[in-house]
């Protein structure tokens, strides 16, 4: 377990120092890549709470990613066009303030996760996968038909949103925001995993019958994990939309859900920094191979296959070895 802690520290240190190196060497694109990796990692940390701790194989997490993205898109769009988001029964104006946008993104994605979780958690196994996928696709097609916010073409935001005291248009500043949030969420994730809630949730994944017989409700535990997971992924969606200054239905697509899951599996399910490793490897492969061929996912698929077959604990498990869960 010590080995995993060192590895986690090393991974975060790398993710922190590469943009600094890029800053010194005037490589803004590398900083953007690192920011992209940090945001993807954040989305995957969210899924890892549901999947790794709760055993909930959700193929609909793009719904929360997209809700976060559209929360940002809609608020920023109304701010830049000086039109209110709504006028009846009361006026709500748009905003360019990142903290406000994050809050809205987290609340809306949390509410969506609560609703989806309440319905989905009545099922298990493949039915749970299918129902979460179906919810994700519902949001996808809804966003396509939502002409007011760009429909299929999506929505462009001209200027990145504001954060008090920072010029967010400077890549390293925006990276610093994303990286800090990632570290905070990882800290919360680590604490949650070791808390009474994490202990009970982890047991609910392995032996729900046992959890019930000690007087705890496994369904409520899983629902809470699903909501927490949705909130974090929604926050990542808001940051992702801000990074690109663009939101589109693609954020809701099942491919996005699949990619978030790939980050988790590649890095290591239930491993604290597994999603970070998975996201970093994904972005590196995307950058290195994406220029060579548009079919670069074939190589990603091959890597994923190798990891699933030979490294069940993901890349982190391969390096750090088998660990006792959450000790």
């Amino acid at each position, binding site marked *: 377990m010590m080995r995993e802690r060192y590895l986690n520290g090393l991974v975060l240190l790398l993710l922190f120092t590469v943009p600094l190196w890029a800053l010194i060497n005037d490589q803004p694109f590398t900083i953007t890549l690192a920011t992209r990796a940090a945001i993807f990692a954040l989305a995957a940390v969210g899924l890892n709470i549901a999947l790794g701790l709760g055993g909930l194989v959700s193929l609909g997490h793009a719904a929360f990613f997209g809700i976060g993205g559209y929360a940002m898109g809609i608020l920023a769009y109304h701010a830049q066009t000086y039109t209110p988001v709504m006028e009846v029964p009361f006026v709500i104006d748009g905003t360019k303030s990142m903290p406000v946008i994050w809050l809205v993104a987290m609340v809306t994605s949390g509410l969506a996760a609560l609703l989806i979780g309440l319905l989905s958690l009545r099922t298990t196994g493949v039915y749970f996968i299918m129902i979460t996928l179906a919810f994700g696709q519902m949001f996808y097609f809804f966003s396509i038909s939502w002409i007011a916010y760009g429909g299929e073409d999506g929505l462009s935001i001209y200027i990145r949103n504001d954060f008090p005291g920072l010029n967010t248009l400077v890549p390293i500043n925006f990276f610093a925001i994303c990286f800090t949030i990632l570290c905070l969420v990882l800290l919360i994730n680590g604490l*949650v995993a070791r808390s*009474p809630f994490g202990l009970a949730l*982890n047991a609910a994944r392995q032996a729900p019958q*046992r959890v019930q017989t000690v007087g705890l409700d496994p369904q409520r535990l899983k629902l809470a994990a699903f909501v927490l997971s949705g909130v974090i992924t929604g926050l990542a969606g808001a940051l992702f939309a801000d990074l690109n200054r663009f939101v589109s239905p693609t954020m809701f697509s099942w491919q996005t859900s699949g990619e978030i899951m790939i980050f988790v599996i590649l890095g290591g399910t239930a491993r604290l920094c597994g999603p970070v490793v998975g996201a970093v490897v994904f972005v590196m492969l995307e950058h290195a191979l994406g220029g060579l061929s548009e079919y670069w996912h074939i190589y990603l698929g091959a890597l994923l296959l190798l990891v699933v077959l030979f490294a069940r604990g993901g890349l982190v498990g391969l390096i750090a070895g088998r660990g006792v869960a959450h000790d």
Partner: protein
Amino acid sequence: MTDPILATHNLQKSFGALKATDNVSIDLYPGEIHAVIGPNGAGKSTLIAQICGELKPDAGRVELLGQDFTQTSTLTRAKAGIARTFQISALAMEDTVLQNVLLGAVGAVGSPWRFLRPVFADKALHSRANDALQRVGLKDDAARRTSDLSHGQRRQLEVAVALTLEPKAFVMDEPMAGLGAEGSKTLTSFLDGLRDEAPILLVEHDMDAVFALADRISVLVYGQIIETGTVDQIRSSKAVREAYLGSDT
């Protein structure tokens, strides 16, 4: 006479034409070990499932401390004080031994909604969990992964989890299953001392353990209680011999 801690009244459960429990009335008094024995398929597991709330009876009642729990969930019954152990260990196998008993402690205190404080930092939970491990003899194995335990140790851990709950009644489904002679003897001795804490409804095939422990025995055959009595009464019952025990006991 004192009131029973746990009681069933005319429990009935059918699966199609098969009557798995047929008017089963059983009770459990303070300080008592009441064993339920019977051949495979007699309805023992179905009876336990109805007592613990996993199955709803077609008719009849389940009472704990005189209160009707028939329509309540497993969760409510567990909170009310029924602690059960499983015939096939239902433990979090990836977790350590200590984590499994800590789960029981968290359940007993009813405090799973704490998100940021490490469970290991909670001294009250820790002390409750360690106490249970100490009592079943697993203190030295606290840091071991549960999947690495022997079958017998897993049975002990099942009991330890139940102990953390400080229940009103234990319902134990074949705790001796798969144990060797020595393990069975050790667990028998432990359960013997446990009855003063809470009475035990014991479903068991190990007749040596049953005869050593039980204050009363009920014999379940084809879903019906054919006899309830003391060890001597059951041993000498012609009906029980014919239906279950045979002539060697």
